[in-house]
C-alpha cells in the first residue's frame, strides 16, 4: 500500500466519530467578524500604518510623480534601477545619472544583487495593516526584483488601489498568481523579541501614494 493510501486510510479511521452523512459545510463557521474595521479615511490609515512599520511615505499627483521619483533616487545616489515591464514610462523621471534596467527572466540573482533600487507598482494596498500586495502583473515584475535591491520604491494609486482590510483584499487577488505581501521593510524580532528593521529584504521601503 502506498503511503498516500495509508495516510488517507488512517485519517478516515481517525474520523470514525464523524457521521458519514456530514459534509464540510455542515460544520458551522460563524462569519460574524467584521469585513472591515471601517477606517475613517483609508488612505490616511494606510499612510499611518506604513509609517508605523518604518516605511517612508510620500504623496503626490501623477504630474508630480516623475519629479518625486527622481528626487528619491538622487537622494540615495542610486545609479542602477530595476524597472519591470509595464511600469508607466510617463512616471519615469528624466535623470541622466540613472540607468534603467529592464527585468528579464535571464537576469541572475547576482545581477539583481548589484542593483541600487527597484521601482514598482502594486496590485493593491491594505489600509488597516499597512500592507502592499504585489502579484507579478504589469509594472510589478518578478518576485525577486523587489527583494534583492536594498531600496524599493512602490507606487500606489490612491484611492482606487486601497482597500480597508484583509477580508476586502483577498477576493480582489488572484490566488494562482505568486503574491508578495509587504508590510514595511524587512525586519526581525529574533534578538530578545525586540523588533529591528533590516535583514535580507530591502532595508528601505518608500511608498508613493499618488492621486490622479
Amino acid at each position: 500500500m502506498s503511503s498516500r493510501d495509508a495516510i488517507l486510510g488512517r485519517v478516515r479511521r481517525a474520523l470514525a466519530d464523524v457521521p458519514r452523512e456530514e459534509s464540510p459545510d455542515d460544520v458551522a463557521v460563524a462569519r460574524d467578524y467584521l469585513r472591515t474595521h471601517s477606517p475613517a479615511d483609508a488612505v490616511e490609515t494606510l499612510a499611518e500604518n506604513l509609517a508605523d512599520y518604518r516605511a517612508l511615505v510620500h504623496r503626490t499627483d501623477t504630474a508630480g510623480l516623475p519629479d518625486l521619483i527622481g528626487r528619491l533616487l538622487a537622494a540615495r545616489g542610486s545609479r542602477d534601477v530595476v524597472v519591470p515591464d509595464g511600469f508607466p514610462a510617463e512616471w519615469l523621471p528624466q535623470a541622466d545619472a540613472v540607468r534603467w534596467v529592464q527585468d528579464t527572466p535571464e537576469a541572475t540573482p547576482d545581477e539583481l544583487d548589484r542593483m541600487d533600487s527597484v521601482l514598482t507598482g502594486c496590485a493593491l494596498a491594505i489600509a488597516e495593516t499597512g500592507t502592499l500586495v504585489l502579484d507579478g502583473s504589469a509594472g510589478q515584475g518578478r518576485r525577486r526584483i523587489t527583494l534583492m535591491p536594498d531600496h524599493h520604491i512602490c507606487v500606489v494609486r490612491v484611492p482606487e488601489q486601497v482597500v480597508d482590510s484583509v477580508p476586502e483584499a483577498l477576493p480582489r487577488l488572484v490566488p494562482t498568481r505568486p503574491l508578495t505581501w509587504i508590510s514595511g521593510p524587512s525586519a526581525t524580532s529574533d534578538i530578545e523579541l525586540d523588533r529591528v528593521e533590516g535583514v535580507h529584504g530591502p532595508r528601505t521601503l518608500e511608498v508613493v501614494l499618488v492621486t490622479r
Partner: protein
Amino acid sequence: MSGTYLGMPAFPKAATLSTRNTRMRANLTHATHTIRDKRAAAVRELPDWAQLRAAGAAVKDRTLRHLDHYLEQLEAAVTAAGGTVHWAADAREANRIVTSLVRATGETEVVKVKSMATQEIGLNAALEAAGIRAYETDLAELIVQLGDDLPSHILVPAIHRNRDEIRDIFRERMADWGRPAPEGLTEEPAVLAEAARLHLREKFLRAKVGISGANFMVADTGTLVVVESEGNGRMCLTLPETLISVVGIEKIVPTWQDLEVFLQLLPRSSTAERMNPYTSTWTGTTDGDGPRTFHLVLLDNGRTDTLADTVGRQALRCIRCSACLNVCPVYERAGGHAYGSAYPGPIGAILTPQLRGVTSELDASLPYASSLCGACYEVCPVAIDIPEVLVHLRERVVQGGETTIRGVRTRIRPAKGHAAERAAMRAARWALDHPAAMRTGQRLAARTRRFHPKRLPGPGRAWTASREMPTVPAESFRDWWQRERGGKVTR
C-alpha cells in the same frame, strides 16, 4: 547541547537544572514580557477578536473533520498547478523523500526557511548523513545552528540567547560556515542583523535548492502560504530552481477566503504586528518567476493518531504562533529545552505526547509540565483548550486506555512510576468518600499538631524544600460546626 532531543531527561529533572540558569531565566523573562504586552495591545486593536478567534477554531475544525476530503482536493490542485505531491507517513519516510529529491538535483547544499515540520523530523541531520549541507537562514535558526544548539521557542528558536551571547556565537562560528563575522562586531541588534545579512547573502545567491514548510495550504486553490519577517523566506522561495516544502497534513484551510481569518489572527498573536513584513503565496510553479520545480511533502508523523482522539484533536488547530509560550509561567522559568521537543511550552506539552505517544519517561512527564493556570487557552488564537487536553493526557498516562499508535487502535497500560501515587490517590479517595474516616484523620492530625516536623521526608520533601507547612488547626470546620450548630452525625 548537541542537535538532538533524543535521550533527554523527564521534564521535572531538566527543569530543576534549567530554573537555576539565571542568565537563561533573565533572557526569557525579558523576551516573553516584552512580547506579552505588545501582543495584548495588537489584539486590543481589533474589536472583533473574539469572533475571529471563534471563526479560526471553526475553520480548523471543519478542516480536521473532513481532512481526507481536503487532502485529496489539495493534492489535485497542487498537481494541476505544476507541483508534485509526496506523502510521508513518518519522519523517516519524509527525510528519505527529501534526501532523494535533493540528490536528484545533483546539489550538495540547500537553503532552508524556518520550518517546524523539518525540525520535528530532524531533516538537517538526515541530509547531513547523506552528504548534503542544509543552511538555516532565519536569524534565530542561524544562531542555533552556528551555536550547535537546539531551538527553544517556536517563533524565536534562540530566545534563550541574549545579544551578547549572539555576538560571541557569530564571532566564533560564522567563519566555519562561510563568510566570517565583520571586524568589530558589536551586540547591537541592527549590527547583528547586518552580519547575518552579509553571511547569508552568498548562500542565497548560489542556492539551487530551497526547503521550506508552510503556515497554510489552501485546499481549493493549491496555494501555499509562508508568513515571515526577514526576507530569508522570500529568498528561499523564489531564487532556487527547486523548492521542496515539507508540511504537516493539518496545515490545510479549505478556501482562499478562509485566509482572511488567519492572516489577521497569526501576526497579532505571534510577533504582535498588524501584519508581518512579508507573506509569500504560491500555487505550483510560475513560468519565469521562481522555482521551476516544486515538491510538496505531506507529513503525517503522528498527526492521524492525534486526530483519532476526539479530545486531543483540537491540538491540530495550532497555527504555531507561540502566544501560549510567551504567556506561560512554566515555560518562562523552565525554558524551552526542558520540553525535549521541537514543540516546547504549553502547545508542546499537548502536541509532543500525542505525536510521539506517552511511552517514554520524558513524554509521559510533559502533560504535568503545567500548573493549569489557563493563560495559554486565554491567548490561543484558535481557542485550543490546552488545560483540558493536558488533563486528558494525564489520564492517559496514569490510567492508560484506548489510544491510536501509527494508525492502530491500541489499549495502553498505565505508565510505570506512578504506583505510589496511584495508591495514595485511591487511599485519599476512600477517605474522602468516608467522612467518618476523614474526621478521624483530622482529629489525629489536630492532636499531634505540636509534633509535626518543619521539613517532611519522602514525597512531602518536595513541598517543604521551598515552603513552610500550614499549621494544622486545633479543630476542623466539621467539628466546629457540629459542636456549635449540633449538626447530626452522618455515617
